[in-house]
């Protein structure tokens, strides 16, 4: 079942990359970006295709996370925020981002019936789903401290920051530009501060809300004894060898 966890990680990272591209394309579409070789029709088409691809990857990400027996994540926790026993806040942010994406996709499919104003109001939520998804990845991600992951997250943030800055520069009125710029700057500073004080510090797994039995498998085996049954039995002292060292690595970070 370790493969499921690797699939969760891989699809999660790729979903964030695709979501970043979708947001950048969406910003380009609202700014009516077009060149002779890149018409607006192409921006809109790619934006639509990529957003559906994001939903597909997030669906696989959620399904593999739920089916993986290591972390106690139920199907309900995937859509109902902050109800999980495993890192509830950070997993809840993922559920919020997933719900926002579903709302955006459903309203886009029903756009003709809903009307443009309603669709546009809901579509603004897509902008909110990106930082929420980023924080979910930083807070829940087992390997957020790895340099390549930090690089990927920084690249995503830089891409969205550049697109947002370009879009803000096109806004009419200095006040609106300053307000939007300050909002983006606040989000960026909050993210950097959170990373420095949270996932990059030792002991983040415990502070993030990982169940104690997953942090110290041997202690759990002794404490829970024969009551540890089912999938979690592999995390007891006797089952650790069968569960493999990868499971130990998952429990630690």
């Amino acid at each position, binding site marked *: 079942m370790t493969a499921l966890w690797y699939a969760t990680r891989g699809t999660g990272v790729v979903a964030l990359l695709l979501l970043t591209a979708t947001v950048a394309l969406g910003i380009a579409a609202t700014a009516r970006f077009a060149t002779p070789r890149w018409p607006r029709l192409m921006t809109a088409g790619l934006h639509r295709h990529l957003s559906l691809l994001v939903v597909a990857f997030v669906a696989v990400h959620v399904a593999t996370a739920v089916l993986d027996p290591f972390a106690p994540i139920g199907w309900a926790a995937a859509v109902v925020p902050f109800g999980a026993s495993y890192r509830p806040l950070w997993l809840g942010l993922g559920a919020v981002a997933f719900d926002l994406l579903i709302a955006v996709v459903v309203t886009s499919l029903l756009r003709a019936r809903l009307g443009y104003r309603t669709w546009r109001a809901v579509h603004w939520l897509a902008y909110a789903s990106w930082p929420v998804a980023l924080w979910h990845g930083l807070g829940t991600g087992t390997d957020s401290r790895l340099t390549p992951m930090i690089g990927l997250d920084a690249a995503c943030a830089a891409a969205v920051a550049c697109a947002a800055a370009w879009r803000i520069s096109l806004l009419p009125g200095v006040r609106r530009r300053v307000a939007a710029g300050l909002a983006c700057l606040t989000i960026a500073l909050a993210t950097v501060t959170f990373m420095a004080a949270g996932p990059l510090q030792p002991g983040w797994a415990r502070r993030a809300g990982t169940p104690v039995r997953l942090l110290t498998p041997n202690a759990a085996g002794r404490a829970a004894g024969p009551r540890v049954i089912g999938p979690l039995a592999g995390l007891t002292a006797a089952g650790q060898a069968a569960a493999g*060292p990868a499971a*130990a690595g998952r*429990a630690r970070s």
Partner: protein
Amino acid sequence: MPLPAGDAIRRRDHVLARTRLASRWITAVAIAASVGIGGAVAHALPGRHPAAQAATAPDPAGSSGGQRAGQGTDRRRHHSAASHHHKRHHHLRPPAQPPSPSPSPPAVVSGGS
């Protein structure tokens, strides 16, 4: 000046075909990247080093898992720990004293008159 209808349709179809092609490429790259990142993460985790796995395999008691769980992601650190564990495994000495006799007599399950 607007394009003639035929040209506009041809141009639109061309753009849509390019969009579909780009979408297919992005999908393929995304799936490959997903598999690649999953594999990379698998090797970045502690315990995924071949030497570490070889050291873990013959441990029938499974007592090293929890200790390994407390270690960091530094592969070198883990490798040295695994080597140390490996050496310890091959340099076992016989116990200094024989096992102490059991204080309770063996249980009799049959016999007697």
